[in-house]
C-alpha cells in the first residue's frame, strides 16, 4: 500500500540517490551543452557573444540614461545580466524538465531529481562561458574589480543559486507537466521580470514603498545581489543573505511537499 511515509521515503530517496548519481547527471548535462552547439565553431560562446553585444550597447546607452559613469555602469550591468541569464535559464528550462525528460523516465526506473541536477549543472557550464562577458567588461571599465577581495563571496552566492535551481526546476517541472499553460505564463512573466528586477537599474534608485515593491518583494533581486555585489567589490548586506536563505529553505520545503505528494504521478502525467 502506498502510504504517506512510503511516499516521503520515495521522494527523499529520489533526491538523495539522484544527487549521488553525479556521473549520470554530469554526463546528461554536459551532453546537452555539446548537443546544442554541435557543428558550431564558437559553441557556447555564441551565448556569451549575444550577451556581450547586448551589454555593450545597453551599457553605452544606460550610462547616459542613468547618469552613471561607464566605469561604474558597465560592470554592474554585465554582472547583473550574466546572473540574470542563469536564473532565467533555470526557470524556463525548469518548466520543460519533465516534458523533455520523458524519453528517459518512461523507459526505465529513473530518479527524477537527476534531471534537475543535470539542468543546474548545464546552466552552471553556461554561466562559466557567459562570465567571460563580465571579465571583458571589467577589463575595459574597471580592471581593479577583477582582483576584488570579495570574489570568493560570489562563489558562495553561485552555490546558493545552484541549490535553489534544483528545487525550482523540480517544482516548475511538476506544475508545467500537469498544467501545460503554466509554462507560457512563466515565460511571459519572466520577460517582464527582467525590467522589474534591478538588473538595468540600481536598487538604490527607489525609495520608500516603491523600493519595497520593486526591490525587496522581488525574490530574484536577492539572488542577483549575492553574486553581483561581491563581483563589484562590496559585501552584500546581512539581510540579503538572510532572505536568500529563507527563500532557499521555504522553496525546498514547498518542493519537498509537492514532490512527495506527486512523485508517483509524474510518469502518468507525461
Amino acid at each position, binding site marked *: *500500500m*502506498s502510504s504517506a511515509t512510503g511516499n516521503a521515503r520515495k521522494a527523499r530517496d529520489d533526491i538523495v540517490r539522484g544527487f549521488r548519481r553525479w*556521473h*549520470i547527471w554530469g*554526463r*546528461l548535462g554536459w*551532453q546537452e551543452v555539446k*548537443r546544442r552547439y*554541435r557543428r558550431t565553431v564558437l559553441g557556447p560562446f555564441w551565448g556569451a557573444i549575444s550577451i556581450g553585444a547586448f551589454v555593450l550597447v545597453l551599457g553605452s546607452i544606460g550610462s547616459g540614461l542613468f547618469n552613471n559613469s561607464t566605469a561604474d555602469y558597465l560592470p554592474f550591468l554585465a554582472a547583473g545580466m550574466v546572473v540574470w541569464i542563469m536564473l532565467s535559464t533555470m526557470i524556463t528550462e525548469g518548466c520543460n524538465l519533465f516534458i523533455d525528460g520523458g*524519453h*528517459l*523516465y*518512461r*523507459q*526505465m*526506473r*529513473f530518479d527524477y531529481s537527476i534531471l534537475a541536477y543535470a539542468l543546474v549543472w548545464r546552466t552552471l557550464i553556461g554561466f562559466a562561458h557567459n562570465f567571460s562577458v563580465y571579465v571583458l567588461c571589467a577589463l575595459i571599465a574597471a580592471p581593479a574589480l577583477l582582483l576584488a577581495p570579495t570574489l570568493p563571496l560570489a562563489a558562495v552566492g553561485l552555490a546558493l543559486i545552484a541549490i535553489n535551481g534544483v528545487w525550482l526546476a523540480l517544482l516548475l517541472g511538476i506544475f508545467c507537466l*500537469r498544467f501545460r499553460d503554466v509554462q507560457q505564463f512563466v515565460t511571459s512573466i519572466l520577460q517582464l521580470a527582467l525590467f522589474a528586477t534591478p538588473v538595468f537599474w540600481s536598487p538604490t534608485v527607489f525609495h520608500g514603498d516603491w523600493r519595497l515593491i520593486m526591490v525587496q518583494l522581488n525574490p530574484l533581486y536577492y539572488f542577483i545581489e549575492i553574486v553581483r555585489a561581491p563581483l563589484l567589490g562590496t559585501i552584500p548586506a546581512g539581510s540579503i543573505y538572510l532572505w536568500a536563505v529563507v527563500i532557499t529553505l521555504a522553496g525546498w520545503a514547498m518542493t519537498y511537499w509537492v514532490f512527495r505528494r506527486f*512523485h*508517483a*504521478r509524474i*510518469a*502518468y*502525467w507525461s
Partner: protein
Amino acid sequence: MAEVTIENLRIDYPLYGSHRSLRKEFFERAAGGFISHERNGHRGRVVIKALEDVSLHLADGDRLALIGHNGAGKTTLLKAIAGIYEPVAGRVDVRGRVTPLFDTMPGLDVDDTGYENIVTAGLLLGLSRTEIEAAIPDIEQFSELGEYLSLPVRTYSAGMLTRLSFSVVTALDPGILLLDEGIATGDAEFSERAARRMDEFIGRSHILVLASHAEGLLQSLCNRAALMKSGRILKLGTVDEVLTAYHADIERAS
C-alpha cells in the same frame, strides 16, 4: 535472489485535455482497457483502467509469457514491474536489478558517436564506468561496427543501429529481464548469431517476462504464462494451457 511480488495491482491512466465529445467517443468503443468516469466529489475525471487486481509472484528461473490482445495490459504490467508507473492501488515489490527493453538504447543521441552512446546507455542502466569499459571489447566484437563506433550514430544505417543497441544491451547482466514484443519479435532481422546471443542473454537472466504474440517464441522461451484481458490476469499456467485458453477465448468472441 531475484523476486517479483505483485499484489492487487491497479493502474489507471488519466486522460487529460479530452473534449467532452472525445470522452463520449471513448465510452462508446471500449477497446482495450475499460474507460471509466471517476467522480471525485464534483470533479469528473476520465481514466483508462489499464490494470485491475493483478497479483503475481515470480522467483528465480521463472520465464513468464504475457499473452493477450492488444490493449490487454501486457506492456503496462511490464512497465509497472520496471518501476516506471507507481501502483495506483496495490503493491509491486521487486528484488534484483531490472533490465527493461522497450525501445532502443536508453538515452540514445544520434549526434554522439557509437562509443559515447555505449557509455550513456551503460550509465543509465546502472553500470559503473569500469563495468562499461570492461564490456566494450565484447560490444566491439559482436557488433562488427569497427571504425563506425567512432562516428556519430547519425551516420549509421537502421540495421547498424539495431546491431549497436542489440550488442550493448545483450552485453549487460540482465537480472530481471523485461521484454516487449518489439524487440523480441525483431529476431527475424538478426542473424543466427544474434539469435544465439539473445538466447544466451535470456538464459543468464534470473527472471524473464516476455510480452509477445509470437507463439513459437513464447513456447520456446517461457515456462509459465499469464492470459491477460482488459487489465486482468484471467489465467496462470503453463504456456500450452494458457495458449489453449487464449484460442478458446478468440473463438468464443468470433
